[in-house]
């Protein structure tokens, strides 16, 4: 079975093939039938001509005297022998005249009249009725009439090639218009198919143009009956996906909330142990456990942010935000984080750079980018925050990422480095989600260069406050 890759192409090809086939068959049939009809008409003409000749000749009074030779002496033989060659039609005749022949013999085989054509004159071979007479060059279709009363043989003939030429010409004229109409029919079929399939195109365009989070139903009423079922099934699928999406998001948010109390319990008891213990070993172990708890708390927080972003919770309304002021605040906040005590954050920022956006979302975005840069930076290294034009670059010094890893940094729970400082694996995913909402562009690339004789390698995180 032929696989249908395009309904439109399939219908068009099938219809064109069917129409062409049907048309050709009927054209052939019409052609042949026309030929037969015309042949019959010509034959009838031959017979009729012979009868007219018979009537004309036998009405001659001289015939009654049985002296036909004398009677025909008065005929102007030159007129019959005259050949008209100037043009096809004229008031004087037609140049095809010599392609039509007539001969009249008497009982003894004496030729009484002829119009001087190339028709072979053979009295011996004469037989009444239709027959084909061939000479070296030509074929003739002839009709012979035998008049028994006067013993006359009247032969009328037409050249076969002229008959064929005329027959074909007439037959062609009756079939050709059909062939001329065929391309028009194909174009019209194509347009009709296109129009008929337009609802499918409308659905596919509507789905294509949709936001990836848009799971609202299509309006089934605006589609034809054949598509209503499909649209209704699609809508029910949207509904199910939307519900499961909501459930999943609620689950993440609920789980993150529920995790907070057990985390508080672990943290407070560990801090209590640390406070009352005098054993350095115990304090060391408790400190490690507390680091684990802090990491878990960070991850829960990130999960919550992500689940809210996924839920499409509207960020606060857009208002002018000074990016520079926000950067300074966040740099201070990050520098104060004990985890990043060895990192020196240097900034190259203008006095002021204002954009109209959601401050909460921008704060989460910048905090995550800065946190990420510091988290994976080499110990005791420098992180630079540079704002030039509408482009913020955060560059740290750290081992380079392999191309394969670089392509996946925005995936959830993706980890770039085998660093000691493990993050939640959600930070960049959150950043990308926010960029999508705020219509910013975020890119991450390796940096490998030599700076004043020293090799400088790390990651450049580039945030453009415009959509690319």
């Amino acid at each position, binding site marked *: 079975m032929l696989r249908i890759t395009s309904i439109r192409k399939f219908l068009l090809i099938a219809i064109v093939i069917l129409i062409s086939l049907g048309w050709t068959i009927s054209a052939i049939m019409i052609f042949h039938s026309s030929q037969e009809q015309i042949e019959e008409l010509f034959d009838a003409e031959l017979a009729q001509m012979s009868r007219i000749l018979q009537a004309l000749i036998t009405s001659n009074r001289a015939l009654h005297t049985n002296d036909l030779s004398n009677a025909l002496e008065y005929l102007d033989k030159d007129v019959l022998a005259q050949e008209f060659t100037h043009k096809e039609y004229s008031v004087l005749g037609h140049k095809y005249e010599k392609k039509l022949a007539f001969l009249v013999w008497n009982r003894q085989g004496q030729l009484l009249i002829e119009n001087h054509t190339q028709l072979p004159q053979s009295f011996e071979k004469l037989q009444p009725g239709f027959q084909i007479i061939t000479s070296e060059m030509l074929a003739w279709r002839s009709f012979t009439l035998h008049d028994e009363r006067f013993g006359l043989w009247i032969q009328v003939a037409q050249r076969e090639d002229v008959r064929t030429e005329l027959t074909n010409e007439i037959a062609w004229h009756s079939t050709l218009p059909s062939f001329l109409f065929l391309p028009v029919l194909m174009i019209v079929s194509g347009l009709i198919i296109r129009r008929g399939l337009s609802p499918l195109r409308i659905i596919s365009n509507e789905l294509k143009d949709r936001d990836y989070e848009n799971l609202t139903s299509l309006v089934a009423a605006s589609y034809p009956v054949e598509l209503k079922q499909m649209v209704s099934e699609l809508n029910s699928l949207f509904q199910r996906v939307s519900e499961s999406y909501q459930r999943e998001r609620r689950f993440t948010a609920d789980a993150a909330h529920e995790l*907070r109390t057990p*985390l*508080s*319990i672990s*943290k*407070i*008891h560990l801090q*209590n142990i640390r406070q009352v213990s005098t054993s350095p070993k115990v304090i060391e172990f408790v400190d490690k456990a507390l680091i684990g708890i802090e990491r878990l708390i960070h991850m829960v*927080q990130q999960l919550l942010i992500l689940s809210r972003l996924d839920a499409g919770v509207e960020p606060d309304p857009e208002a002018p935000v000074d990016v520079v002021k926000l950067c300074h605040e966040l740099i201070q906040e990050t520098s104060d984080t004990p985890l990043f005590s060895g990192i020196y954050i240097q900034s190259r920022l203008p006095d002021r750079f204002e954009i109209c956006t959601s401050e909460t979302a921008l704060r989460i975005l910048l905090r995550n980018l800065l946190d990420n840069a510091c988290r994976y930076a080499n110990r005791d290294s420098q992180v630079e925050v540079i704002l030039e034009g509408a482009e913020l670059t955060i560059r740290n010094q750290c081992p380079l990422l392999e191309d394969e890893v670089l392509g996946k940094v925005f995936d959830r729970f993706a980890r770039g480095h085998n660093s000691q400082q493990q993050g939640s694996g959600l930070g960049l995913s959150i950043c990308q989600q926010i960029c999508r909402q705020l219509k910013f562009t975020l890119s991450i690339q390796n940096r490998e260069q030599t700076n004043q004789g020293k090799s400088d390698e790390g990651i450049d995180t580039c945030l453009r406050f415009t959509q690319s």
Partner: protein
Amino acid sequence: MRILLVEDDDLLADGIVTTLSLGGFTVDWVNSGEHALHSLSCEQFDLCILDIGLPKISGFQVLKRLRGATNMIPVLMLTARDQVADKVKGLDYGADDYLLKPFDVEELKARIRALVRRSHGDRQPELIICESATSTLRIQPDSHQVFDDDQEIKLSPKEFSLIHELAIHRNRILSKNQLTELIYGWAEEVDSNAIEVHIHNLRKKLGAGVIETVRGVGYRIS
């Protein structure tokens, strides 16, 4: 300083009670909104730590009823919800501060101290007990220290709690029972003359004139 902790999770409550006791606070714990409202209506506390996610009567409801009954005790809300709307709701209902789980114990203690200071109209981290021409006696609640000018006077935890309570309730007479509740809470067994013993020791260390005895009523710092 006596604190009422309202928290339905036993393990977390236990941790908070331990950490605050270690910090020199007197902590009583209830696990429901009903018990909280009852305790707050009959006894005296300096501060209430209130969890929002309580069964039956939520923390918000407790707060609403408390403020409805014109009880102006400082309330520190404890919650697992970090949405701005929740914070705003809590503060609108009359909470004085807000702490998100999981929290750091040092932050919890600092916020408690700040709230208590504010509730007594005192924004200074130090409390002056008495000033004379020759010396100034002052308390540093954060470090649980008492100084006579720059000279530290060593006090036991209970002695410190007692002088701290009298100092923050300056000019108010606190009865022996009130003082017992404030520095021991419900959990501890207390000798009937424990307060007199502590007052006696404080007078020896700080000087006889600092704490005044009001016969038949109680004690005060003027």
